[in-house]
C-alpha cells in the first residue's frame, strides 16, 4: 500500500457510546426489572452463533450516529450496503447455481443437463481430489479417490465430455478449482472455443483463490509466491482475452467451514482480496482494469441476522477499500459481487431431513443479504454427494423463496432495523480490527506464514465444539431432540468402475495424441515458468496438445517446488 493512503483501521465506521432514552430507562426500571424477577430469561447472555453479544432490544439509541446517505445509500450506489444493483431481485432473481460433480465427465454432464432442465440458471462444477491436487486419474495417489468428491478431469478430452451440449454462451459456469485453476480454465476455454463459443462472450468464474487454501481448504500444491504469480497471470489474461470472465472468487465459505466466526470469515476474505489487488497492481495493471471482475464467495450459516449483517458489511467495507484505499475510479471496481453457499458444516448426519430446514433458513439469509448467486446444500450433505432427489429439493428450496416468499419484492428488506443496522456496524468495526492485526503482521501472506488465520480458525472451531459438548449450543437431533432410530436415506455411491473407466480413457488418449507435441509444449511451459512471463499462453498450448493435468502440474512442481504447512502443535 502506498504512503498516504488510509490503512484499514482508519476506515472506521462512526462509533458512540449508547445513550438509552428517558422512556427506555423508565421502562427498564418500572416494567422490565419486575418482569425479570418473576420470570428470568433463558440465558445470562445471548450471543450470535459466532459469540457476538445480542441485546434484548435495539432502539433508535443504538443508531444514534446513523446517516442514511453515508451508511447505506441507495442500492447500486456507493457504499452499496443495500445491494450492488439498482433493482436487485425486482430486475433479476439471483442465479441458482448448484455445485455439482461426481464420477466421470459423462456422469456429471448428465447431472448438469438435468439441473438446467429443473430450472437452475447457472452451472457450477466440483472436481475430484486428484484433479484438485493436480494428479491424473492413473496416479498412485489417486487410488480410491477418482470421482469420489467431484468429477474426474485429467485432460481436455474429459473437459469436452463434461461440457458436451451445454449452451456456454448463454449460461455461466463456475469452477471450484484452485492450485491447477490456470490449467482447468485453459481446458474450459479451449473446449468452449472448439464447441463454437466466442471467448469474448462467454462468462463464468474460476475460484482460483490460493490464499484461502493455505488458510482453510488446504488444496495447495506450490508455495505462496509462485501460486500468487499464477493467480495474477490468470487475472491479467482474463482482463485482455476473456473480458466477461471472473478469474477469481475470493472465498470465505471454506474459512467458515473450517470453523471460523462470521467476522473472521469476512475479515480474512476481504483481506485476501486486498492482498490480491496489491499483487496484481504490482504487475503494472491499473486497479480499474481488473477490479470489476473480482468476485467473492461467502457462507450462509444458521444465524440469519448475523449473516445478513455480514453481507451488508462486506459490500460497504469493500466499496470503501476499493475507493479510499486503492483509489479505484470505476464504480464497478467498488462492487462486492458474491456467490453464497449454505453452510455444509451445519448439516447433520442424524435426522437428515432437518437439514432441509437449516438450508432453507440459510438460503433466506443469503437472499435477504443480497447475494448474486446461490447454492443450497442437499439433505444428505453429511453423508455423501447429493442424489438426484436431494439436489432437486435443494434447488426447489431456492425456487420457493424466489417465487413464493415475497422477500424479493423489495430491496434490502431488513434495512432500517435497529438490530440489523447496529450489527452491520459492529461487524464492520470488528473486520477493520482484524485488518489492523494482519497489517501489523506484514500482510496476509506473512500472516499465513506465521499461522495467524489458521490459529484463529482452529480456536474458534474448538470453542464451538466445546459449546456443543457442554450443550451451550444446541444442535437439534445431535445433542438434543435425539431419536434412537433414524429413517434411512438412499445415498449416492461412487464405485471404482469410474476410476477404471477414466484410466482406460487416459491410456487411449496417450496413444492417440502427438507425443512429440506434448513434450515440446511441456518443455516450453517449464522454461516459461522459470521466468516471469504470463503462463496462460503456454498452458493453453499444452492443453491443445492434450497434455494432462498431472503432466502440466508436474512441470510446475519441478519449477516452483511444493508446499508443506507448518506443523500443528
Amino acid at each position: 500500500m502506498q504512503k498516504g493512503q488510509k490503512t484499514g483501521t482508519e476506515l472506521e465506521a462512526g462509533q458512540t457510546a449508547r445513550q438509552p432514552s428517558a422512556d427506555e430507562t423508565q421502562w427498564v426500571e418500572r416494567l422490565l426489572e419486575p418482569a425479570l424477577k418473576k420470570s428470568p430469561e433463558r440465558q445470562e447472555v445471548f450471543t450470535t452463533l459466532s459469540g457476538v453479544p445480542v441485546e434484548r432490544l435495539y432502539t433508535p439509541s443504538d443508531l444514534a450516529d446513523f446517516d442514511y446517505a453515508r451508511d447505506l445509500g441507495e442500492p447500486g450506489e456507493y457504499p452499496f450496503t443495500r445491494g450492488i444493483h439498482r433493482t436487485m431481485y425486482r430486475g433479476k432473481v439471483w442465479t441458482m447455481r448448484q455445485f455439482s460433480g461426481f464420477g466421470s465427465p459423462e456422469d456429471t454432464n448428465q447431472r448438469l443437463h438435468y439441473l438446467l432442465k429443473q430450472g437452475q440458471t447457472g452451472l457450477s462444477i466440483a472436481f475430484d481430489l486428484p484433479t484438485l491436487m493436480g494428479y491424473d486419474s492413473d496416479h498412485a495417489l489417486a487410488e480410491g479417490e477418482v470421482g469420489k468428491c467431484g468429477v474426474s478431469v485429467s485432460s481436455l478430452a474429459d473437459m469436452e465430455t463434461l461440457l458436451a451440449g451445454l449452451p456456454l454462451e448463454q449460461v455461466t459456469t463456475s469452477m471450484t478449482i484452485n492450485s491447477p485453476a490456470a490449467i482447468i480454465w485453459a481446458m474450459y476455454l479451449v473446449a468452449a472455443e472448439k464447441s463454437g463459443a466466442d471467448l469474448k462472450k462467454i462468462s463464468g468464474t474460476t475460484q482460483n483463490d490460493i490464499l484461502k487454501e493455505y488458510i482453510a481448504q488446504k488444496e495447495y500444491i506450490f508455495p505462496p509466491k509462485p501460486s500468487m504469480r499464477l493467480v495474477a497471470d490468470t487475472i491479467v489474461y482474463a482482463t485482455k482475452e476473456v473480458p466477461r470472465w471472473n478469474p477469481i472468487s475470493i472465498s470465505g465459505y471454506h474459512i467458515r467451514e473450517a470453523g471460523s466466526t462470521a467476522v473472521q470469515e469476512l475479515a480474512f476474505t476481504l483481506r485476501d482480496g486486498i492482498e490480491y489487488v496489491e499483487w496484481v497492481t504490482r504487475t503494472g495493471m491499473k486497479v480499474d482494469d481488473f477490479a470489476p471482475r473480482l468476485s467473492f464467495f461467502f457462507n450462509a450459516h444458521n444465524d440469519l441476522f448475523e449473516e445478513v449483517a455480514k453481507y451488508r458489511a462486506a459490500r460497504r467495507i469493500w466499496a470503501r477499500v476499493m475507493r479510499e484505499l486503492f483509489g479505484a475510479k470505476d464504480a464497478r471496481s467498488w462492487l462486492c459481487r458474491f456467490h453464497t453457499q449454505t453452510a455444509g458444516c451445519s448439516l447433520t448426519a442424524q435426522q437428515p431431513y432437518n437439514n432441509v430446514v437449516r438450508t432453507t433458513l440459510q438460503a433466506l439469509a443469503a437472499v435477504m443479504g443480497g447475494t448474486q448467486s446461490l447454492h443450497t446444500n442437499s439433505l444428505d450433505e453429511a453423508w455423501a454427494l447429493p442424489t438426484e432427489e436431494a439436489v432437486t429439493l435443494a434447488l426447489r428450496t431456492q425456487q420457493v423463496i424466489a417465487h413464493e416468499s415475497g422477500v424479493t419484492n423489495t430491496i434490502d428488506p431488513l434495512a432500517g432495523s435497529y438490530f440489523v443496522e447496529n450489527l452491520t456496524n459492529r461487524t464492520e468495526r470488528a473486520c477493520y480490527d482484524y485488518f489492523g492485526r494482519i497489517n501489523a503482521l506484514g500482510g496476509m501472506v506473512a500472516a499465513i506464514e506465521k499461522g495467524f488465520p489458521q490459529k484463529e480458525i482452529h480456536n474458534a472451531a474448538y470453542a464451538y465444539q466445546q459449546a456443543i459438548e457442554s450443550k451451550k449450543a444446541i444442535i437439534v437431533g445431535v445433542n438434543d431432540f435425539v431419536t434412537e432410530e433414524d429413517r434411512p436415506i438412499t445415498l449416492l455411491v461412487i464405485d471404482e468402475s469410474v476410476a477404471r473407466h477414466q484410466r482406460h480413457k487416459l491410456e487411449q488418449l496417450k496413444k492417440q495424441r502427438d507425443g512429440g507435441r506434448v513434450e515440446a509444449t511441456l518443455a516450453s511451459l517449464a522454461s516459461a515458468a522459470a521466468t516471469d512471463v504470463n503462463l496462460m499462453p503456454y498452458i493453453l498450448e499444452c492443453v491443445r496438445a492434450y497434455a494432462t493435468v498431472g503432466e502440466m502440474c508436474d512441470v510446475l512442481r519441478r519449477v516452483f517446488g511444493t508446499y508443506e504447512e507448518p506443523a500443528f502443535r
Partner: protein
Amino acid sequence: MDRRIRVLVAKPGLDGHDRGAKIVARALRDAGMEVIYTGLRQTPEMIVTAALQEDVDVVGVSILSGAHRTIIPRICELLRGNGLDDVVVVVGGIVPDEDIPILKQAGIAEVFQPGVSTQQIVDFIRSHVRTVTSGR
C-alpha cells in the same frame, strides 16, 4: 506405573479437511494423552512408519473424501505386516453405515461418524488401550 496413552492422528489420502482431526488431537491432549498429528496427505506407508517410530498405542485416521474403502484396509494391512497388531485403529469422518462392517473386518476398532463428541472418543480410547508399560 501407567504411562500416557500415545495417539497418532493421521490424515491419509488427498483430503485436506483437517478441522476435525485438529479438534480431536487437541481434545486428546487435553485429556492427558500424547498426540502426534501427521499433517496432511500421508500415504498408508507414511502413517505406519510414523506409528512405528512414535511407538503409539492408537492410530486415529481422519478421512472425509470417500476413499476410506481403499485406504483404511491398506493401513490395517501394513500395521499388521509391521507387527503392530496391538495398535488400536479408529476412524473418524464421513463413512456411511454400510461401510462400517467392511472397515471393522479390515481391523479397525470403531468408526466415529459426524455428531460424535470428543468425550466419546476419549472414553473409547481409554477403555480400549492398555497403558501398563510392562504389557508392551
